[in-house]
């Protein structure tokens, strides 16, 4: 049954879809709309899923859905309101002071990532948070592998500058 197959192959990647959409839009409700659009499209084009990489396939559709919403509005949404409490994975083994420090670090990383231009931000999210290979990222963002690599490289330069306090150059936890 098609719907069961869809649930078994695509729905398990809903978290990945939402995480990607959330980083693209930087907004909870918009990310939800994007993923919902994407799922409707994914159901419609389910037969086009040829290889077994359902995650990359779904993420491609998420990006297309986001892109068509943005181009319909002719702008890149750049609101910065974070209205969602993300899973910040506090480490229970830490004492309260360390945990506070950890939360501070997570907030700083989140803000640095959100400041990146979307082309850079998405390759970092796909590589560092989803752990995708260059080939998969290239297919999702529709760019040659060389472009993916150079975006990653430039994105990391920027992140390094943003996350390294000027008084302690080169020191990262």
């Amino acid at each position, binding site marked *: 049954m098609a719907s069961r197959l869809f649930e078994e192959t695509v729905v398990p990647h809903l978290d990945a879809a939402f995480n990607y959409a959330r980083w693209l839009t930087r907004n909870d409700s918009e*990310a939800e709309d994007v993923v919902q659009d994407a799922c409707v499209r994914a159901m419609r084009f389910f037969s086009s899923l040829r290889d077994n990489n359902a995650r990359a396939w779904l993420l491609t559709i998420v990006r297309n859905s986001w892109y068509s919403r943005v181009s319909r509005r002719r702008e890149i949404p750049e609101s910065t309101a974070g209205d969602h409490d993300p899973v910040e994975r506090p480490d229970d083994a830490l004492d309260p002071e360390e945990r506070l420090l950890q939360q501070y670090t*997570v907030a700083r990383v989140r803000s640095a990532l959100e400041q990146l231009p979307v082309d850079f931000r998405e390759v970092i999210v796909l*590589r560092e948070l989803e752990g995708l290979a260059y080939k998969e990222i290239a297919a999702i963002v529709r760019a040659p592998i060389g472009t993916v690599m150079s975006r990653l490289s430039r994105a990391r330069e920027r992140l390094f500058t943003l996350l390294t306090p000027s008084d302690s150059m080169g020191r990262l936890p």
Partner: protein
Amino acid sequence: MSCELVERGLTAYLDRELDIDAATAIRSHLTDCMACRRLVGEREALGRLVRSAPYYAAPERLRARVSARTNRSIFPGRFVSLAAAATLLIAAGIGTTVMRLAPAVNITMVDQVVDGHVRSLMAEHLFDVESTDQHTVKPWFLGKLDFAPPVADLSSIGFPLVGGRLDYLGGQPVAALVYRRQKHTINVFVSPSKSDDPADVVRSERGFHVQHWARDGMSFWAVSDLNDAELTQFVRALQTS
């Protein structure tokens, strides 16, 4: 190999996308060159830092919406399953054994339980009475139903009661008790047992887990997107409360 080549291959090296020869060449250069070693170390630390960024999991509401769509709009899945159930009914009629009816009844009931759960999450109508106090929730049903659903407090083991509401299941009014596990919602539908109640059921449907049992003349259906193990823990606790 010069430092320039390390710099050029740095991104792919960090991402383990270099071929073995190139990676080996860089590694051997690193043993000799402190400056490059430092550069790679910094970038590895940056990678660890970036990976501590929030991972946004799909909200339960979205999951419910997608699940509802999967089953209704595009695919004829629902019709297929109804047709299958109808075939089974006919087969049972011809084959004279009534036992074969049982799975069909179960499937329909499981479907309805999942529908009820999804509906409660979508309509934002999770509660008629919102309270974490079993002594508030239980009396609320008095006069609204002709039975008194048992209401347990399981907050001590991490399943706080958050409220209750009236719902319909299998064409009859039921008590829906709402519990939570972190961000997951658990609906427990309670009604008096009927003679055609199925035996205990443990099933997954559309990404939700459903468990059914009967006790003291009451029939229980628990449903959640919670993982199987935790839902089972919850059900055990409810059965022994």
